[in-house]
């Protein structure tokens, strides 16, 4: 709803409108008087539609503002003022506009009914009776609302135990994901795809040849009948020497040039002279074909 101001564009409720009220009231006292006649005072009615919670609220305001007797509402005047007040309602605010228009229709209907001759003075016959009942009820609701507001304010000044909740830390996951497809695309384009060539498997020579280690083992076994694996590996730091020495040991074992002994898992590995080793220690004779 947009503010619809009648008269000057301030949203102030004009209590200054009171002075001309008496004359205005007198002029509009006659029900159904033509609109133009009692223009006196009407210009002072400022109605900011946005301030009202609905047509009843607006109606109540108009009645209070002019100190109108609710049991004898000058329906023509109120209807006209109501219509002027709602002129500024934007068509886009259809729902609330509909509520105001419905009330306007009701007012116009009552106004028409007032013009018809009535047979009796019974309350039920007054076309305004239902509207009056609603206004009274609504005024009561407004009054109670005011009291509730006071109670609420009083209650909010008292605090129970544990009024200070732990500070809430926003988890990363709790942060709403706000993005659009353009941002996603942009991010995707920034990702550099890895060069497939980098994944090419490169074969390199082992830095230590197994043959070296074969010679080492055989050389050691020339000096003694058995040698510790750890003694063979000790001079080198790199793991590859251990690996290659072990492979050489396995190979020589396969050729039966040496025998491998280990007392228990993870204990010292001993390498013994094998049966194929010459008494003088020459290990050149046994070929792979002979062993297999």
């Amino acid at each position, binding site marked *: 709803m947009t503010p619809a101001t009648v008269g000057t564009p301030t949203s102030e409720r004009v209590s200054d409108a009171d002075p001309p009220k008496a004359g205005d009231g007198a002029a509009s006292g006659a029900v159904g008087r033509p609109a133009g006649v009692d223009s006196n005072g009407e210009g002072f009615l400022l109605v900011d539609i946005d301030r009202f919670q609905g047509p009843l609220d607006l109606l109540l305001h108009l009645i*209070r503002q002019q100190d109108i007797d609710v049991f*004898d509402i000058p329906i023509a005047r109120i209807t006209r003022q109501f219509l002027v007040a709602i002129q500024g309602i934007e068509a886009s605010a259809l729902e609330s506009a509909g509520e105001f228009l419905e009330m306007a229709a009701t007012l116009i209907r009552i106004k028409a009914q007032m013009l018809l001759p009535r047979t009796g003075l019974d309350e039920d016959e007054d076309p305004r009776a239902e509207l009056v009942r609603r206004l009274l009820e609504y005024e009561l*609701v*407004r009054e109670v*609302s005011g009291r509730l507001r006071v109670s*609420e304010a009083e209650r909010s000044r*008292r605090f129970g135990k*544990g009024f200070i909740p732990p500070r809430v830390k926003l988890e990363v996951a709790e942060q709403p994901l706000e993005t659009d497809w353009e941002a996603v695309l942009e991010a995707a384009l920034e990702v550099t795809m890895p060069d497939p060539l980098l994944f090419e498997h490169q074969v390199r020579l082992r830095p230590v040849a197994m043959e070296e280690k074969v010679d080492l083992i055989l050389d050691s076994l020339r000096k003694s009948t058995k040698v510790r694996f750890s003694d063979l590996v000790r001079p080198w730091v790199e793991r590859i020497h251990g690996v290659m020495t072990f492979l050489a040991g396995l190979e020589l074992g396969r050729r039966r040039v040496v025998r491998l002994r280990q007392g228990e898992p993870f204990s010292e590995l001993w390498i013994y002279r094998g049966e194929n080793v010459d008494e003088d220690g020459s290990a050149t004779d046994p070929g792979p074909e002979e062993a297999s």
Partner: protein
Amino acid sequence: MRTAQIVEAILFASDAPLNAAEIARADTSLDEDTVQMALDELRADYDESERAFELVEIADGYQVLTRSEFAPYIERFDTVPRPNRLSGPSLETLSIIAYRQPVGRIEIEYIRGVNSSGVIRTLLDRGLIDVVGRDEGLGRPLLYGTTSRFLEHFGFRSLEDLPRPEELPVVLRDRVPLGPVAEPEEEADPQGSEQHVLEPVDGEAPEAAATAEQPAP
């Protein structure tokens, strides 16, 4: 251990109102009467020793709350939740539900003159009202009633604490009842001066008082 101490310990540990029956469940030695006596004792105790808190009867129970004069100090902490004040439409709708419960949406909207489904949903979400049944009529519409959180929010002991309609300064009602509609109404206008007397109690006054009491946000 004295009964009053046990009751005090339970009230201290609770962050919601408890009634005598609920407190009595803490120990077999307690019953509702002894707890009630202990509650009265505690309340008098707090009052006499001028504690910063008091035992408040609220929402069909009792709760230890700070006295309102200390609100400015407490509110200085930014972790204190701002008192969430209800909007005008919310208060109007709550007023209707509080007095007319169980009541359906159609009746609420007729009284307010505006669509109220959004407000009703908000009040439901905040636990101030609840669905308490269904009407017999067409479509068996939902009926709403207020909850104990409603009482807590406004600091009421029970629905009895709601202002009585006859206590309210309803200006319009105080006018002369609907009488013959004819020429006599012309004479009604001079009464305007006399009716001015009623203006100080006009509708806006209580709300203005409410806003004045509220600390500036």
